[in-house]
């Protein structure tokens, strides 16, 4: 009887780790989706990806401190600001990079610079200290499910992530522009010969990549707590791990990678919490050793 009760508790903890891992993982799937889109369409290695997440977070923070208390309005603001910025920013840099001899290496260096600039600007404006965005949902009582408590903020972040991921999926697989986007991922020159305006589509994808990163930024106070100007680097590394686990260049891979990352992280947090920060690196190493193309990858990809 005693053993049975202990086993029941262990099972409930395992169940908790898996469910909360999925909630966490969906957020990380969204957080890394843009990195994958940019690489898939433009072969751009966006080292500043995490910094765009940070920019999204601080847009929400500024909005919050100016009386816009709802995360929904923060999300809308990010779509407008980062969407516009992405579309405009693409034209001076995108065509040069994609037309260059080695877009992957050049973009890596370029975005390293962008990352440093964004970080420095954020430190200048907001200082070095972490700040909190006190969304109302953070104060709501945890939700009980099978004897375990789940944070409503995590559920909200995961829910919004699912909606955004589904929207991106719908765009890619059910719209003409999405076909064009996937065509460019498949074969850039062939897409151009077909009559697709590759730079227009690329600019849209660039904007979409920044927007998804920014949206994850708005949601980040709900999942990872306080925000700070240098948070980008860690997020970039996590995003790379997630994307490589799933498969670089395949947006669907981000979802699988995010879920695997989230669940592994929560399992580690539950059973071996001191080791949990190593999870992304260990997963990254394992995947690179066992299946370098990622779980959904087919051919060998560079970068």
């Amino acid at each position: 009887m005693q053993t049975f009760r202990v086993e029941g508790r262990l099972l409930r903890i395992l169940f908790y780790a898996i469910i909360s891992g999925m909630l966490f993982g969906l957020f990380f799937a969204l957080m890394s989706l843009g990195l994958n889109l940019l690489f898939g369409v433009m072969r751009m290695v966006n080292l500043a990806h995490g910094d765009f997440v940070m920019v999204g977070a601080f847009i929400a923070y500024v909005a919050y401190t100016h009386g816009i208390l709802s995360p929904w309005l923060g999300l809308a603001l990010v779509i407008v600001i980062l969407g516009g910025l992405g579309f405009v920013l693409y034209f001076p840099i995108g065509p040069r990079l994609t037309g260059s001899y080695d877009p992957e290496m050049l973009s890596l260096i370029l975005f390293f610079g962008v990352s440093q600039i964004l970080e420095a600007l954020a430190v200048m404006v907001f200082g070095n200290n972490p700040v909190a965005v006190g969304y109302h949902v953070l104060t709501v009582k945890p939700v009980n499910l099978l004897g375990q408590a789940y944070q409503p903020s995590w559920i909200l972040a995961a829910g919004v992530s699912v909606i955004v991921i589904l929207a991106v999926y719908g765009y890619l697989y059910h719209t003409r522009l999405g076909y064009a986007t996937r065509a460019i991922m498949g074969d850039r020159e062939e897409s151009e010969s077909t009559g697709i305006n590759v730079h227009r589509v690329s600019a849209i994808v660039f904007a979409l990549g920044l927007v998804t990163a920014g949206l994850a930024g708005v949601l980040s106070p709900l999942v990872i707590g306080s925000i700070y100007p240098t948070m980008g680097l860690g997020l970039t590394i996590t995003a790379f791990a997630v994307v490589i686990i799933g498969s670089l260049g395949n947006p669907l891979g981000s979802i699988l990678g995010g879920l695997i990352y989230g669940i592994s992280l929560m399992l580690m947090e539950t059973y071996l919490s001191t080791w949990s920060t190593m999870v992304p690196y260990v997963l990254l190493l394992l995947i690179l050793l066992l299946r370098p193309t990622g779980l959904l990858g087919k051919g060998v990809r560079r970068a």
Partner: protein
Amino acid sequence: MRPTQPVLQVKNLSARYGVMQVLWDVTLEIGSGERVVLLGSNGAGKTTLLKTLCGLVPAMHGTILLQQQPVDALRVDQRIRRGLAFVSELGMIPTLTVEENLVLGGYYLSNAIRHTRIAEMYQKFPDLWRQRRWAAGSLSGGQRKMLAVAKALIARPTLIIMDEPSSGLSPLLVQELIAILRQLDDGSTAFFIAEQNIKFLDLATRAYVLEGGRLRFTGTVAELHADNTLRTAYFGLR
């Protein structure tokens, strides 16, 4: 036999591929509804010429007129909207389904027209209908060519430029492809086909021969057949 209403006029076109110049002063003309073959061996500059016409490779100098309008300053997609279609050796996007490829063929059409045209293509090519949800890359060589042709036809272009349609096809499938192209002849679309395979001459009325980036022969197919030097030099025929 001079074409009366040219759909394509090229004057003194030169182009390079990377750092190497591969085309010198190419001048040619394709009439409305005409079928013209561009013969040449590997490395003669055929693909570069076609890509320059489409805008995939920038011209060094010379002019290109599509339906009497200069298109030199236009992007590829803008040239395609003006009635040009380019069927590359690959001819389709392997990672997309057959249907998605056909949608891209009619990218600039309205939804209703695109829908009707795709349905027409399915009638013409029932194989494509059966495999419409398959990845184009999983089709057989012959079916891929069918898809490439169908994709090009959807926008009803005035000129289709094809790069080595026979590549990767068995001799039997080449015959089949030629038969399909002949069947499609309704006089509204001109074809400019770059080939090494002289069987395609059966399809054409006129031919150009490209050698070392320069045009070596311009004339009717009958004249080409009569031209002994060319026959020996390029095709090893006697």
